[in-house]
């Protein structure tokens, strides 16, 4: 099977060129992204720091060692086929919010952790963290990862994924068919589709595009540490389209989905590692406000055109949507 990167390279010379995709459940600041970028441009020292942090993404060498492999190893025991569906009920749509910082993940000002990589994708720079009484408390900018949400109606989800290829590589036999939709109060339908997988990552591995039975986020360095560490039954990283009322409003975009243990707490607040509920499951969809930067093997901010207006009139610049009325099945092919 030809690499998705090769296909995209021909179709989208740049910046999607080889496309890899990637990425993680991820993301980061939104509402403040443009302003932050402007601040960074005005501040060469900050730009230099960001550049250095991107270079220091801890898994880059691992990805480099795999991304040109043409005949990757198969999953031990054979391919796993997973289907996840939601046929009725609403969804939780995350709104931009200031993420509280788990000291277990982000350390302390004296001994910070998880700061390397593209801010929001694989790390969080110390200068984007509020400090109070000698502890990191929350992000200074809003991100897709917080406690605020709204409920939207008629959530539908259909995921069919095959995890066949074990590691990152130039080619993959992993497969993906993904479609999800939901409706706002006015009756507008929002939809995300994806069917191309990322054979390899940029700042962290994608396991051929589909991964099963791994821990992601949090302490792992696999995806943003703004999400708690969570056992993930199935995850995918791919490219897809964002639609509103049946029309494509953005794409190709990085699309990441994962079925995990439950990471929300009282009041639907996004928990810390200590708050995870292992015996309850939820599905997370993320269309991250980033695009791949192939040249530097990292990511650059790029708000998503969701078509959904926030109460302040601004467009929601990402989709981070949770589905919790799920039917799940899996088997070895």
């Amino acid at each position: 099977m030809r690499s998705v990167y090769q296909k995209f390279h021909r179709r989208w010379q740049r910046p999607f060129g080889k496309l890899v995709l990637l990425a993680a459940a991820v993301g980061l600041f939104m509402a403040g992204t443009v302003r932050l970028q402007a601040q960074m441009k005005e501040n060469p020292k900050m730009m230099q720091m960001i550049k250095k942090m991107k270079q220091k993404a801890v898994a880059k060498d691992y990805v480099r060692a795999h991304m040109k492999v043409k005949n990757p190893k198969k999953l031990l025991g054979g391919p796993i086929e997973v289907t996840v569906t939601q046929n009725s009920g609403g969804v939780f749509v995350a709104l931009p919010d200031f993420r509280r910082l788990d000291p277990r993940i982000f350390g302390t000002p004296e001994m910070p952790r998880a700061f390397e990589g593209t801010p929001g994708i694989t790390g969080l720079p110390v200068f984007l963290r509020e400090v109070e009484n000698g502890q990191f408390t929350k992000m200074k900018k809003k991100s897709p990862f917080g406690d605020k949400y709204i409920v939207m109606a008629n959530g539908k989800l259909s995921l069919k994924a095959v995890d066949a290829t074990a590691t990152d590589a130039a080619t993959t036999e992993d497969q993906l068919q993904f479609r999800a939709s939901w409706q706002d109060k006015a009756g507008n339908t929002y939809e995300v589709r994806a069917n191309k997988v990322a054979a390899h990552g940029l700042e962290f591995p994608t396991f051929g595009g589909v991964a099963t039975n791994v821990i992601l986020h949090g302490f792992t360095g696999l995806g943003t540490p703004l999400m708690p560490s969570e056992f993930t039954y199935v995850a995918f990283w791919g490219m897809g389209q964002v639609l509103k009322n049946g029309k494509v409003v953005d794409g190709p975009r990085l699309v990441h989905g994962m079925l995990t243990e439950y990471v929300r707490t009282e009041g639907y607040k996004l928990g810390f590692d200590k708050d995870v509920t292992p015996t309850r499951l939820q599905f997370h969809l993320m269309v991250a406000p980033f695009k791949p930067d192939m040249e530097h093997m990292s990511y650059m901010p790029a708000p998503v055109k969701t078509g959904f207006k926030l109460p302040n009139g601004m467009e929601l610049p990402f989709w981070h949507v949770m589905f919790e009325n799920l039917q799940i099945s899996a088997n070895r092919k």
Partner: protein
Amino acid sequence: MKKIALFVLSALMLWVAVVAFAAPGKSKTGHSKVVHITMTNTLKFNPASDTIRVGQTVEWRNTSLLVHTVTCDPKKAAKPEHVALPEGAEPFDSGNMDPDATFRHTFTVPGVYKYFCIPHEAAGMVGEIVVLPAK
């Protein structure tokens, strides 16, 4: 004149009967047969706690856009502190309730019942019914 008075009196009695029949259940007093609890988009049972008498029925209505459950079964709880059944009481579970769906349960054993919504237990969607002995 007498006919009009009779008509007015009949209409008044009919209205009183209809209102009395349709009135929402009153908690704590045990005056009404059916007590009503709603299930919300903010992941709450409303009211979260209520007191009834043995023999009364509780009706839960899903007024949210989400799918919820009313589950009082220790085997299905993620955390033991979210569920309680008096000795001799049978576990119950509504199964998935789509928006606008209702579920009724009549309580025949006095005691404290703690219940939860399976998908949102971890997000704090838990409730309590205290069932007092019959008068």
